[in-house]
């Protein structure tokens, strides 16, 4: 039982950190530019495809990851300059419509180029096996690749924290999230800042997509479900707040993973078998939405509101 809980907790941490990579870009685009980007999930999908294609071509996962992330950054730059720049000042409905259109285009483009079937992305050979730890005198096995994801996620989270909390650019970003007009009036090149943030967000999407690629299937439509989770995260954390995105990601990742692993077992212990069989998976999948509705009910601005 301890093993199961520890394993699921680590899985939750890993999932949460990957969600953070997605949510960080989303919350900044949302918070600073006041732009709803439904196509953020499509960037994640396209990024994963870029990584998979580059990894197949170069036969090295890490080269593929680097090339894919750069490719997604370039795509992000093109999108920002050609489309998103026109959307920032428009109302939310226009943004929803435009980015919804982008989802349709991205899904169909990916289906046309790579076909409708999921494509394989293998982890590096060196990381394929599990690692053993001593735990209470027993051996505890955990996949090496997942440990690497956790390490990369933690490193990126730390980097992002330093960048946003300590650097001058980060100060502008936070100022932009708190009050855009005032920041512009103080002479910050907000337009350039927007572009940089958007491109950075796209790169983070591809990083998450590429890292998760070997664990989940790289397929059309993979962005839609994860997009909703990223939105849940930034709503829980408070729109525009990196700290909120981190806390929200870890909460959502852990609650979702542990809920799915443990709730059915717990319910079986307390309820009749057939009721538990129906209720368990249902309750586990809606747990994070219940959490979000509850948090919004008591803290309508999220846990760490960026705007005072």
């Amino acid at each position, binding site marked *: 039982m301890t093993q199961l809980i520890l394993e699921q907790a680590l899985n939750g941490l890993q999932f949460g950190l990957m969600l953070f990579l997605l949510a960080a870009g989303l919350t900044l685009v949302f918070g600073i530019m006041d732009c709803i980007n439904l196509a953020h999930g499509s960037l994640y999908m396209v990024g994963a495809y870029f990584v998979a294609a580059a990894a197949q071509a170069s036969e090295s996962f890490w080269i593929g990851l680097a090339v894919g992330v750069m490719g997604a950054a370039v795509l992000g730059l093109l999108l920002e300059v050609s489309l998103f720049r026109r959307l920032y000042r428009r109302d939310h409905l226009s943004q929803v419509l*435009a980015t919804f259109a982008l989802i349709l285009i991205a899904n169909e483009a990916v289906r046309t180029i790579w076909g409708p079937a999921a494509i394989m992305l293998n982890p590096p050979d060196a990381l394929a096996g599990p690692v053993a730890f001593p735990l209470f005198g027993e051996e505890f096995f955990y996949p090496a690749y997942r440990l690497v994801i956790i390490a990369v996620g933690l490193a990126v989270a730390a980097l992002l924290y330093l960048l946003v909390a300590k650097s001058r650019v980060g100060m502008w970003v936070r100022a932009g999230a708190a009050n855009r007009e005032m920041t512009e009036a103080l002479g910050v090149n907000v337009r350039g800042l927007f572009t940089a943030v958007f491109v950075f967000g796209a790169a983070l999407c591809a990083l998450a997509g590429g890292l998760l690629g070997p664990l989940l299937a790289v397929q059309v439509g993979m962005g839609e479900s994860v997009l909703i989770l990223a939105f849940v995260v930034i709503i829980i954390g408070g729109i525009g707040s990196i700290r909120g995105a981190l806390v929200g990601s870890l909460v959502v990742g852990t609650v979702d993973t542990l809920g799915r692993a443990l709730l059915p077992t717990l319910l079986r212990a307390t309820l009749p078998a057939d009721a538990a069989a129906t209720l368990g998976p249902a309750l586990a999948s809606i747990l994070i939405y219940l959490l979000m509705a509850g948090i*919004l009910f008591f803290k309508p601005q999220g846990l760490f509101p960026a705007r005072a």
Partner: protein
Amino acid sequence: MAFYRPARWLRPLALGLFIALTALPFVLEAFDQSFYIGFATRLLIFALAASSLNLVLGFGGMVSLGHAAFFGIGAYVAAICQQAGINEALLAFPAAMAVAGLFALAVGAVSLRTRGVYFIMITLAFAQMVYYLFISARAWGGDDGLPLAGRMTLAGFSLAGDTALFFASLAALTATMLLFGRLAQARFGRTLQAIRENETRMEALGYPVFRYRLAAFALGGAVAGLAGALLANLTGLASPNLLQWMQSGTLLVMVIIGGVGSLWGGVVGAAVLLGLEEALAGLTAHWHIVLGLSLLGVVLFAPRGVAALFGRRDG
């Protein structure tokens, strides 16, 4: 935006459209194109669903990204009614409306405490909960959805023929548009639109803002439930896909294309989107790309929607 006021030529146009639509099945049958009766029915049903969202979004100013929940619940209630032995649409459809409306009342009561983006997201969250509930419920088909054994009867007459279902859908849409048209210009609709324009002022004037919004939200949910029940009859399946957030997005897109806050926005949007889909799917396998580019074109070049041409606005 300002208050909705129909253009003078709109009434004869709507009447003409209605007459043309009543003749449509017979014309299609005469030309041996009865396949299109099904498509026309689908269009009417989505026009109904989009119009119900337009009441919430266009007139109430509430950007709901969870409208598919009420749509899907309507479909499931119809299927569950049939499973329970109730095959009469006069019982099943009101039941679908009641369940969807009551659920919308509950969702609205919680969601309307939030504003702006948070409202969008909390309605989305509720819709996701419904989606996962139905996916996990094995008694109702889980992932596969709940199939109907056959179409229902309406007041004893079978809806099995495509023409019969077409007229049932046309009747539902006509009644709804007449009701919404009256509402939009009645005290209720005026108050609702005034709240959309300036909530604080309406609050200060002593209007129960929350209750007006909630009423519109619940009414929109109930009508979406009716659309769902009709769609379940058309396709013979209450599918969890109806509850997916992309479906909410599609309805939202229909309303935006058609024109937010024009009475006919939902109808025009559904016709444009489904018509484009049908036309493009015949031309190219990659019609999604063309559709996406067209939507981008609408955003960039026709920001107020197609139906902004219908219906003058003051100010």
